[in-house]
């Protein structure tokens, strides 16, 4: 299973973290629980320093981290030692393609300002650290449907507030 998904920039800034196993925000001495800060520190050190020709897998604390670089962003997924590393590379690419389709040639800034949308998309691809959908089209359709639900609710809200505003004028 995928234990967590991490997007970090070339500079080591976090752009997205999604945890499917327990973790702590602050460092604690408990060994079994991963700590966000130390994970990011360690992984940035391990991954950002690797050369371009090297393999996309890093062994780390008994797990494997599969990473792939897209422009200035590193997409990392931490998997169990006996998972299929090559497939996880495909999952990363699957995610990136869907982001790309959604944002229209996605860039780091899209993911910063619309980070919540990136999370929504990820939630349509993975649940409980397992793959949910192999069809990009289906994911796009589901996200679009939910976005339009939100839009409709917004319009409704603004039309109601318009009515109230007009009534109270």
């Amino acid at each position, binding site marked *: 299973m995928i234990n967590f998904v991490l997007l970090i920039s070339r500079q080591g800034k976090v752009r997205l973290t999604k945890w*499917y196993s*327990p973790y702590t925000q602050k460092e604690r001495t408990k060994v079994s629980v991963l700590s966000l800060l130390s994970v990011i520190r360690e992984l940035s050190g391990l991954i950002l320093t690797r050369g371009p020709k090297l393999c996309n897998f890093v062994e780390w604390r008994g797990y494997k981290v599969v990473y792939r670089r897209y422009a200035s962003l590193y997409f990392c997924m931490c998997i169990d030692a006996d998972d*299929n*590393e*090559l497939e996880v590379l495909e999952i990363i690419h699957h995610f990136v393609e869907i982001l790309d389709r959604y944002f229209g040639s996605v860039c780091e800034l899209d993911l910063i300002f619309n980070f919540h949308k990136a*999370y*929504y998309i990820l939630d349509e691809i993975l*649940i409980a650290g*397992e793959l949910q959908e192999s069809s990009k089209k289906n994911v796009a359709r589901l996200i679009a449907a939910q976005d339009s*639900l939100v839009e409709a609710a917004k319009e409704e809200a603004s039309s109601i507030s318009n009515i109230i505003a007009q009534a109270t004028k």
Partner: protein
Amino acid sequence: MDLAINPFSSGTRLRDMIRSIRACKTAAEERAVVRRECAAIRAAISEGDQDYRHRNMAKLMFIHMLGYPTHFGQMECLKLIAAAGFPEKRIGYLGLMLLLDERQEVLMLVTNSLKQDLNHSNQFIVGLALCALGNICSAEMARDLAPEVERLLQNRDPNTKKKAALCSIRIVRKVPDLAENFMSAAASLLKEKHHGVLISAVQLCTELCKASDEALEYLRKNCLEGLVRVLRDVSNSSYAPEYDIGGITDPFLHIRVLKLMRTLGQGDADCSEYINDILAQVATKTESNKNAGNAILYECVETIMGIEATSGLRVLAINILGRFLSNRDNNIRYVALNMLMKAIAVDTQAVQRHRATILECVKDADVSIRKRALELVYLLVNDTNAKPLTKELVDYLEVSDQDFKEDLTAKICSIVEKFSQDKLWYLDQMFRVLSLAGNYVKDDVWHALIVLMSNASELQGYSVRSLYKTLQACGEQESLVRVAVWCIGEYGEMLVNNISMLDMEEPITVTESDAVDAVEVTLKRYSADVTTRAMCLVSLLKLSSRFPPTSERIKEIVAQNKGNTVLELQQRSIEFSSIIQRHQSIKSSLLERMPVLDEANYLVKRAASTQATVSSVKSAPAVTPGGPLKLPNGVAKPPAAPLADLLDLSSDDAPVTTSAPATAPKDFLQDLLGIGLTDSSPTGGAPSTSTDLLMDLLSIGSSPVQNGPPTSNVNLPGIAETKSAPVSPQVVDLLDGLSSSTSIPDENAAYPTITAFQSATLRITFSFKKQPGKPQETTISASFTNLATTTFTDFVFQAAVPKFIQLRLDPASSSTLPAGGNGSVTQSLTVTNNQHGQKPLAMRIRMSYKVNGEDRLEQGQISNFPAGL
């Protein structure tokens, strides 16, 4: 809503907040912005602001991602989830998944909302709830909500089904007992056409098999056929743009099905046979020019290795791995190495064929590949190939990265120890490893090396010469230096005289002073640590006895450390100087070669210490006083700890176990010299034999006989005349100058003088004196008076005290007591009562002396000490 109502107003939009955080140039600026935003959000929360609740939540999520605490927003998630609208719920659930995890109590509060949303008419709201539950649910929630999720597995909407299936995975992980409830629903999902549902269902089945044997059996019976059909369909399917990756239709589904097949086929011949054909088809037909195809092949090989496959299928799998291994893509090579580790169990010979390639991978530029390859090589080593493989690895050690040396060294040492058939080979390999990567060699490894050398008498000469040569070349490798210095100290004369030369060896010319030079250089090297330096001092001390002409020089070198700021070194040099200077007569026997170390015991101990961390607490030496010491100059330790204790200097600081007598030797010298006295009568009974400590120490003494002639006579300066109960200061006395001689106290002390002992012939009085500020310590001035009419000669006074008291005896003023009370002999004793105020002093005493050449012995117990001592 009017912004003016709320001064904090959550005024900035999410976009603006992100901008202002990104504009920060320093971490401090960023903290300030975040603090301001958090304050605004807290204010909005406490006012119960509703309009901006979801915006605040989005901000909190961003702040959380930066690593700041956001716990105060947790309740807001619950409020958003409880709201009616989809947009609020969407952000609320996202916040829930980000800001909370299963260990937080707050999470329990959301169970009810989740239950409602799971039953909602809107499929997207059901989807949100399933997603949240699948990502963060705890065991309690899993139990509470499992029936809802189970029901949703039969929902009409495929998107709800797939989410419910994955959510069930989480539930089963948290509560494996629930697995049986899901198995029939999971099996029926495998008949679906929707790929999302299929993938989720296959994964759920895999999880159920892990959780329950019953589910495993059920699925073996009920879904194998369906699985084969799914795999056949998907691998035979023509181009399907929706699922196509690199010319392959839905590799994800391929892989998940193969994985489930592995689980089902493991240890089950019928199942394995049933899937044989389809596996062969996938293994032969899948294109391997793209990553997706290779991912499938990789999974397929793993499944073939995992099940009871036919030999033909296994050959196919191993061949795929061979192709992988020769691939130029590092990812493919990495997984090949990974897979070969598993293949070893199945077919070692087939993996051995790739040995050369694997060995090349150990030298790869990529650390991930190197690590994998090294693990694999380690598994491939056997008796026949150990030597060439070790040579390759050691050669590589020379050029490898610093980071990799530690792993590599550990593996080489392990191989060398495991497969050494002859000692010479072992020594040669170890010397090379020490010289190339001595800094990475673990302590237990070089300890084992020393134990082995100590046992291999025919190779000691060769060892010391090789190490001497290596030391000249690689003086920076800590472990090498230690081993070399130890050997030079022990086997110095073999170095200088080329003793026990091996045939292939070139004689070398090393003078005595060269050997001393080598150790001196090491001692003075600035990077040497305390242990190494201490070992150098011991080595020098030993050399001073091996090479008497260098003794003066060694004395000077040792003396330079007398002022060392490290207590350990300072103490050693003072002690050693004293030995070199004053105790010529005992030096040679004191500094003899160490006895052969017990190899079997060391191995046992090493194995034990790798399990439990090495405890530095030493048990007290258990050498019976008076018994002949077999080790003239060695470890007077329980045999379980032969080497480490001798070398483990740090353990000198360790607390002495309570089983040790009160005078347990903390003194290094005592350890070194092998003096160990156990208090055989801890309650204070006088020892029944008069123990000649020094004699035992040198193992030259016949064991003294009770009532025998006093063995005292001490031909060494500074040895206390009194033989006594177990007292460590004896050693201190040996060195003299370390113990401050206590002056005889004046009579007008605060405590009354007592008559400690009175017989027809002898009277002993004690007077007491305390140093101010040391309530525990009492100086007793004993005065012995001869009441008989004949002079006592060779008078010896002995005393024994209970455990909680420490006793030190100073030399008596004379050993002759004049007759008839004409003058007396005095002796001072210092006692330290460690339980001062709780227990009174108590002491047993024994006096031996000669009357007209005839031995006399008197004993007594003193219990009338004044209170307050």
